[in-house]
C-alpha cells in the first residue's frame, strides 16, 4: 500500500504537483491519466524517491519513506524510452537487478528465464538489445522490472514509443503480467483508451492536481467535472455553452439544440454541455442540426474522425467505417440529445446520460 499525503512539489517557484492525496493498493493497476505536463512524471519520480517533495509525506506499507533515496527502496521503473544496457546481452540486461542483489547463479537463471518466458523474449536471450525491435527492447525493460520483485513498479508511458500493433499486444499482456506480482503497480499514460483498457483505478491529473479518482468505467460514465470529462475523452470532448429554456438549449442567440430526457429536472439557465465524438452524427444540411464546415477528416483504419467548424468552435465526430468527406463540405452535426453531459458554471457535473 502506497500513500501520498498532501504532496506538493515546487520547482523554481512553480508548482509541478500540488496537494496530492492518493492511496494505491497492491495487486491492482493504478493509472495516472493526464495530458503532457499534467504532473504524471513528477509524481512518479516522487513515488520512486528520485526527487524529494517540497512538502507532504510518502508512506509505503505504513512506513514513512519521504526523502529515502531510490536505491534504498525496492522500486522498479520502466520509461517511455527503451532503457537497456547496450553492451550487455538480453540475459544480462534482465539479470542486472539480481546481480546487484548478489543472487546465486541458479536463482538468476531461473528467474531470468521465467520472466523471458512470460514476456515472450526467451529466444533472444543471447542477443544484444540493439539487434531487437522496439517492442522487444521494451519487453526487456519490463522483464527486468519483473525479476526485481519490487514492491513498487512504476511504468511511465511505456507504450508511447511503440507501433500501434505492438501497443495493442502489450496493452492486453501488461495487466496479466504484473497483477500477479502483488506489487503496487502505477501506470502513467496520456491516452484515455489505454487507461480504460488497462486500469482498475484511474487518477485523473490536471495541472499538477488530482481532478478525480475512481474506477475507469465510473469516471467515464460520470465524470465529476468538465476537466475529468475532457481527460477521459478521446477524441476530445465537444463542448459548447448553452442556455437551457425548457426542452430547448439555446446558443448563439437564436440557434438551439434539443435537451435530452435526463435533463428534464434541471432548472433553466446557462450551462456548458459536453458530447463525446461517437455520439455526434453527421448528415446532409437540415434545419434540425448544427450547420458546420468540414475542416479535415482522419481515417484510423476502421473509423473516420470528422473535424468540423461552426461559429469558431471545432467539434469532432467519430463515424464507423471509412467515409470520404472533403475539407470545405457543408454538413449538419446532429448531437444525440440523450448523450449530453451537462456542467454548471463551475464545471461541476449536474446531469449525465443514463445507461
Amino acid at each position, binding site marked *: 500500500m502506497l500513500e501520498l499525503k498532501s504532496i506538493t512539489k515546487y520547482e523554481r517557484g512553480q508548482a509541478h504537483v500540488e496537494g496530492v492525496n492518493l492511496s494505491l493498493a497492491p495487486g491492482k493497476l493504478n493509472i495516472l491519466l493526464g495530458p*503532457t505536463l499534467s504532473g504524471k512524471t513528477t509524481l512518479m519520480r516522487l513515488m520512486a524517491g528520485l526527487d524529494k517533495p517540497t512538502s507532504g509525506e510518502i508512506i509505503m506499507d505504513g512506513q514513512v519513506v519521504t526523502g529515502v533515496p531510490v536505491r534504498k527502496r525496492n522500486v522498479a521503473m520502466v520509461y517511455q524510452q527503451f532503457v537497456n544496457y547496450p553492451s550487455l546481452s538480453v540475459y544480462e540486461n534482465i539479470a542486472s537487478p539480481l546481480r546487484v542483489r548478489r543472487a546465486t547463479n541458479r536463482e538468476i537463471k531461473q528467474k531470468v528465464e521465467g520472466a523471458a518466458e512470460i514476456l515472450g523474449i526467451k529466444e533472444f536471450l543471447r542477443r544484444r538489445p540493439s539487434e531487437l*525491435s522496439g517492442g522487444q527492447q521494451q519487453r526487456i525493460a519490463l522483464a527486468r522490472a519483473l525479476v526485481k520483485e519490487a514492491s513498487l513498479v512504476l511504468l511511465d508511458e511505456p507504450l508511447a514509443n511503440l*507501433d*500501434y*500493433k505492438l501497443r*495493442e499486444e502489450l496493452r*492486453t499482456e501488461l495487466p496479466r503480467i504484473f497483477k500477479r506480482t502483488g506489487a503496487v503497480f502505477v501506470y502513467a499514460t*496520456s491516452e*484515455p*483508451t489505454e487507461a*480504460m*483498457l488497462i486500469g482498475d483505478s484511474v487518477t485523473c491529473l490536471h495541472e499538477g492536481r488530482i481532478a478525480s479518482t475512481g474506477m*475507469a*468505467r465510473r469516471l*467515464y460514465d460520470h465524470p465529476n467535472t468538465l476537466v475529468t470529462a475532457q481527460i*477521459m475523452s*478521446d477524441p476530445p470532448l465537444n463542448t459548447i455553452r448553452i442556455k437551457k429554456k425548457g426542452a430547448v438549449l439555446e446558443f448563439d442567440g437564436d440557434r438551439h439544440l434539443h435537451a435530452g430526457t435526463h435533463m428534464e429536472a434541471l432548472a433553466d439557465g446557462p450551462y456548458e454541455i459536453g458530447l*463525446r*465524438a*461517437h455520439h455526434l452524427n453527421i448528415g446532409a444540411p437540415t434545419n434540425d442540426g448544427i450547420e458546420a464546415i468540414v*475542416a*479535415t*477528416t*482522419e*481515417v*484510423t*483504419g*476502421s473509423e473516420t474522425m470528422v*473535424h468540423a467548424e461552426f461559429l469558431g468552435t471545432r467539434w469532432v465526430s*467519430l463515424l*464507423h*467505417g*471509412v*467515409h*470520404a468527406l472533403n*475539407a470545405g463540405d457543408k454538413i449538419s452535426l446532429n448531437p444525440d440529445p440523450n448523450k449530453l453531459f451537462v456542467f454548471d458554471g463551475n464545471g461541476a457535473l449536474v446531469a449525465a446520460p443514463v*445507461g
Partner: protein
Amino acid sequence: MARIDLENIAHSYAAEPSSEDEFALKKLNVSWKDGGAYALLGPSGCGKTTLLNIISGLLHPSQGTVLFNGADITSKSPEVRNIAQVFQFPVIYDTMTVYQNLAFPLQNRKIPKNEINTRVTRLADMLELSKYLSRKARDLSADEKQKISLGRGLIREDVAAILFDEPLTVIDPQLKWSLRSQLKRLHAEFNHTMIYVTHDQTEALTFADQVIVMSEGEIVQTASPQELFERPAHTFVGRFIGSPGMNVMPCTIDNHHLILAGHAINIGCTVTLPTGAERIEFGVRPEFVKISTDKCALPVTVEAIEDAGRYQIARLKFCDLTLAAILPDGEPQPSGNVGIMFDAENSHIYANGHLVGKRS
C-alpha cells in the same frame, strides 16, 4: 509534376544476392498517376523506405527501370530527377534564415532574385511561416522546421514529386493533427504527386487516396482506405489495418459451406478455390462479428471483455479458435456462453493468404 512508373524493380543490398530472401524489395511493377496522393504503409523492414529511395534516386535499384512521364531516369541522380524529399528528422540549414532556407533550391537553380522573392513570400504565407521569415531556421520548433523542409520542395514549381519519409516522427502528438491536415490542403492546392512513407495506419489512411500496403519486400495491396478496411486482399492487410485487426481462422470449404472448427456455416455463395491452395482461412473484422440469439448463431464463450469506453472488445473462444468482436457503446455486456453471427458481406475467404473471389 509527373506520372511515375516502376517496371520490374527489385533491390538487394547484397552485391550478389543468391536467394529471394536477400532482396529487400522483391520484383514489383507500379504506376502512380500524376497529382495523386499515395502512401506506402507497412511495418519496419518491409522495404518501403528502400522503394522511396529508389524513386528519389538516392538508391540505384539492382534490377528494373524507373520512368518519370515515360522517360527512363533509372541512372539519373536525385538533383536531375527534380524530386523533393522530406525526411524523418527535419533537415534545415542551421545558419540560414527561414527565408534563405526556402530560397536555397531556387538560388541553386539560378532563378532571378525578384522571382525568388515572390515565390518565397507566397509559399511562406501558405505554410503559415511568414512571421518567421527573418528568423534563423534553427530557432524554430520541430514542426515548423519540418514545414521548412517541405517548403523547400514546394517552392520548386516544376518538381516532379514530393516524397515523405515518416515526416511526423519527431512531431508532438498534439501538432501531428494540424500538420497532417495542412499537408492534405497543400496537396489539394499544388496538385503535386506525393508519396508518403509511414508505419502508422492513421497517417497513411488520412493522407492518401491510394494506400500501398507492403510486407516483406512485396506490395500486398494497393487500394483506397475504404477498400483496405472492407476488402483486405491479404490476411496481412486485414491484421495490420484496424485495431484490433481482422480475425483470421483456418477453415475448409465444402460446396456452399464454410467449415469452421467442425461447424458448417452457409455462406450463400460459391467460392472457387485456386488449384493447389493449401492454407484456407476465413477472415472477418471484429466490427462484423455480432452477438446474436439466432438459432443459427455459433456457440462461443466470452473469455474477457476489454472496455475502451466508447466500445468494448470481447475476446471470444470458439472451440479451439480465438476471436475478437467489437461491441458498440451501449450494448449489454455479454458473458458466459453466447451466440455470434458474421456479417456475410464482410466475411472473406483467403487461400495461401490471398483473397479468394466470391460469386453469388
